[in-house]
């Protein structure tokens, strides 16, 4: 699928990595719901969730950035939500649910595991705060994030959109039986299988490109599928999250198939891989990374948007029985 020149935003930088009017941004739809900022001092909040919808509990994630580009990391924060209005803020915010947000650490560099929350440079810990939250109606909502930082209380708020229905395949829904590319797919450039596999470089995680989503479902086997473009990701997290899924593949290959779907068939020509488009391209927009766990029955068991961690995924994998090969 070829995407229009101005239509596609592959991933919104989660933690405010973009800036200014020239930065890529969301055009709505299912995408990152994001965010207006009113920070005490210089604390900045940005909702990092994609595809929030009214209904039952779902994963809500928000990133916090302190002055000088430091990430607020570790520990936990208090979240309080309020409803702003169906289409825009109409009157006083209506109080909504409250939650405790726990730190979800971006996989990758050895992190310091400091007492938190604390503002640290990227090399000492990056991540978001997550909680399971339910929103009772669609519209515009606001989260107020409170934490103790630098010896005093700080707060930041961010607005976000809650859809009436999920736009991206949701938990409990049938997985799309797409024929994602594998290393054996004929006539496909390596970079379309994994954007890191270009310029003569090997695909770094061949175990993630052995089977298609369709074939895994056909065999009634569970699959953990990561949609990400490690090279062309606008956020900072696609590569580390793909690597995290690869590390899980090495430990749990007897329990599920592990599949990486590269987003781009051809980045320079703006051509998406069909499987990525079928799953994620909505309203001329695509946001990644995403990780989906597909059950042996072909339905989506769990999904993680944007920032996925092994700590969240492993409990699901541990519960799976060994596959019959």
């Amino acid at each position, binding site marked *: 699928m070829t995407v229009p020149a101005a239509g596609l935003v592959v991933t*919104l*930088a989660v933690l*405010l*990595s*973009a*800036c*200014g*009017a*020239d*930065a*890529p*941004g*969301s*055009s*709505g*739809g299912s995408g*990152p*719901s*994001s*965010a*207006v*900022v009113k*920070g005490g001092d*210089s*604390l*900045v909040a*940005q909702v990092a969730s994609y595809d929030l919808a009214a209904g039952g509990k779902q994963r809500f994630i928000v990133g916090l*950035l*302190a*002055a*000088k*580009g430091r990430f607020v990391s570790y520990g936990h924060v208090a979240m309080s939500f309020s409803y702003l209005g169906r*289409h*825009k803020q109409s009157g006083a915010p209506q109080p909504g649910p409250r939650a405790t947000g726990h730190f979800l650490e971006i996989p990758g*560099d050895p992190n310091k595991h400091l007492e938190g929350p604390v503002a640290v*440079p*990227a*090399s000492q810990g990056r991540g978001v705060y997550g909680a399971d939250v339910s929103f009772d109606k669609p519209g*515009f909502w606001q989260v107020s994030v409170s934490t103790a930082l630098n010896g005093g209380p700080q707060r930041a708020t*961010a*607005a976000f*959109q809650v859809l009436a229905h999920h736009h991206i395949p949701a938990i409990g829904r049938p997985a799309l039986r797409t024929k994602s590319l594998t290393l054996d797919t004929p006539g496909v450039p390596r970079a379309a299988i994994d*954007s*890191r596999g*270009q*310029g003569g470089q090997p695909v*770094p995680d061949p175990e993630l490109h052995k089977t298609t989503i369709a074939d895994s479902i056909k065999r009634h086997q569970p699959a953990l599928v990561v949609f990400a473009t*490690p*090279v*062309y*990701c*606008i*956020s*900072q997290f696609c*590569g580390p999250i793909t690597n995290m899924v690869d590390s899980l593949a090495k430990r749990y290959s007897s329990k599920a198939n592990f599949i990486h779907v590269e987003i781009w068939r051809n*980045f*320079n020509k*703006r051509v998406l891989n069909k499987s990525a488009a079928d799953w994620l391209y909505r*309203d001329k927009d695509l946001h990644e990374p995403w990780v989906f766990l597909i059950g042996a029955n072909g339905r989506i068991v769990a999904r993680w948007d944007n920032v996925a961690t092994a700590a969240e995924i492993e409990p699901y994998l541990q519960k799976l029985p060994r596959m019959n090969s």
Partner: protein
Amino acid sequence: MTRRLLVAVAAGLAFAAAACASGSAGGPARVRSAGTSGVSVKSPLVAAVASLCAAEKRSGKDPGSARRIFLDEAHEDLHTLAGRAEGKDRQAAARLLVAMEAVEAGVKPGTQPRRAAALLGTLIDEATGALGVIGLKAPACAA
């Protein structure tokens, strides 16, 4: 105002505010800490390339330290640079992102210094090119 427009506005506000907080706007005319580079530059995107120069110098003795400089002082702004360059020269942005990924994957504690320096050198070249695409000049170390 349509929902789409409203969200777009909200997102724009978010980014603008983020830039204010982090001091990482791509445009000119804001001074920020020179970081490890020791070079005082006004655009954070130019400063990011100056930090790459510092990382390259450090890589000869300590690739781990070079990685920290890359992550803490350049990575975020290079993503911004790629985003800005993409609208004018998609291939230049692609080359920059490829070079960034190579550094992120290949410059670590234990990496051979020569290899680390080569990866950082390529990244400096591509970042310099991307700066040119958006009308900014790279710092002297990258010339």
